């Protein structure tokens, strides 16, 4: 409607918060608040960056995470290769032999269904 001020909820909340903050300053708590700000500065700086919808270092983090994920399976397979070269561990025996054979080639589905 023309002629009326449209007040958003955010503005209203700010208007509500302003008087107590002004009172805080008036009552001499400002030095203490400045002191608190020195402590809270790292959080405030990060908050400002995030409020601008910027995530500092995000791409670097994601690429590092991707590289880390790719590296881990390779490291495992390298470990297996070394284990394979170390004599006894290379040749499965007993129950392990049966298990590894089954794991290598399962029975055909049609045969399994007939059985």
């Amino acid at each position, binding site marked *: 409607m023309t002629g009326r001020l449209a007040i958003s909820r955010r503005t209203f909340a700010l208007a509500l918060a302003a008087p107590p903050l002004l*009172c*805080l300053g008036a*009552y*001499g*708590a400002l*030095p*203490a*608040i*400045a*002191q*608190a*700000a*020195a*402590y*809270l*500065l*790292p*959080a*405030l*700086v*990060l*908050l*400002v*960056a*995030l*409020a*601008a*919808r*910027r*995530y500092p*270092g*995000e791409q670097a*983090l*994601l690429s*590092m*995470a991707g590289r*880390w*994920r790719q590296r881990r399976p390779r490291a495992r397979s390298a470990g297996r290769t070394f284990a394979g070269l170390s004599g006894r561990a290379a040749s499965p025996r007993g129950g392990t032999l049966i298990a590894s054979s089954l794991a290598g080639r399962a029975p055909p589905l049609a045969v399994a269904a007939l059985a």
Partner: protein
Amino acid sequence: MSPDCVPTCLSFSTAVRRSAAITVVLLTIAALVPPPAGAHGISGRASLPVPAWLFAWAAAIVLVVSFVLLSTMWSRPRLQGIHERRLIRWPGALSVPAGAIGLALFALVIYAGYEGVSYYTANFDITFTYVIFWVGVPISSVVLGNWFSAFSPWRAFARGLRRLGARARVRWRPPLSYPAWLGRWPVVAGLLGFAWLELIYHNRDDPSVLASLALAYFALMLLGMALFGIEAWSEKGDAFGGYFSLLARLSSLDVRQGALWLRRPLSGATSLSEERGTVALVLVIIGITTFDGASNGVVWNTLQPHVQSFFSGLGLADPLPDELADSVGLLLAIAVVACLYRIGVLGMRTVSSRFGSAQLARTFAHTLVPIAFAYVLAHYFSLLVWQGQAIGYLASNPLGHGTDYFGTADWHVDYAFLGSTAIWYIQVLALLSGHVSGLALAHDRALAKYSSMQDAVRSQYWMLVVMVGFTSLGLWLLSAVNT
């Protein structure tokens, strides 16, 4: 500038420039303000090698490094499932002597409250209630698990009554089922009440008042257990049982189903149910500690007289204006803590539209549990270490009548046991490890909840703000004590 960034958004370079400007201004102001360390009653603070606020910055760096390591090396959820193994069988019969000990101590509190001397340092009640029970039990629960449930006097009494009733073939069935809408709100209300008693009420050091309140609480617990069942009420209606069991989720030990279980560190916190009042409960625990710290600091000591004079102007008689002013302070501290968490939740909501803010607040509530513990440990550690020693002589002379039951009546509190500087470093370490644990829990939950790694990492930027904020707030409060 991103396409969804309307002109109201700051560009990155502008944001950085403004942040730098704000940094310079704030640093200048901070440099002009005299450092708090010099005014501390605790002498060890003055011997710190760097200003106390630099510890907050160092803590922030540690948190950022932890965040980077988590984001890059922790790529799948590890704490969401059950990771535990049974250690030993735990005889259920042990709960009988444990309950008897709990009941005996409760009886001693009542007896000492009415029959002992009223001077608070000479009566068993004050040290036992405010130091051993309120501080010692939650801290030990994080190490040993939820041992209080076995020692809880009201639970033990109710279970004893049920056993006696079964022998006499009288079987009591709770007439009501615990309402879901009530959730953990009774625990929240109970903790607020106790905090008010300990921090604000003028007659808090009167042993007879404590004894009367303990009896009233005992009766209330019995009524709740009679109406809703012993276990249901003990977990959700008993303020202390609920509080201690919440912190015990951080423990690697758990007793249930007749066995002692060892679980993966922090994995107990992930099973915290998202009931009503859960978020409020963790925020209230942090808020109570925050107010306790702030009430000794310069901000509240500057503001409190003005709030008090406002209530005095209404014609209220002493000590009501003082108590009301401090009650306002307690609520304000909880509001500050809630606002900090709310900022993180609202930020996370901008990452993905899949989750609403209320849902996010509940989903990540368990990440505040290690922070709550860190606040409790950091804030009350010196009290436990120093004043906790008093229980040695009070055990021999609980009423203050000059008895010496265990030959320890002449013991004294040894303040040189641990220096103030050592305590400060322990406090910093406690705050840091609590917040790194919170960060790890939040990261793990984000990986389980968000469909893409990018969203998970972005959401954790916001939790990083929360964690850095809580760490800095905690350190500021600790450094401001006695200023």
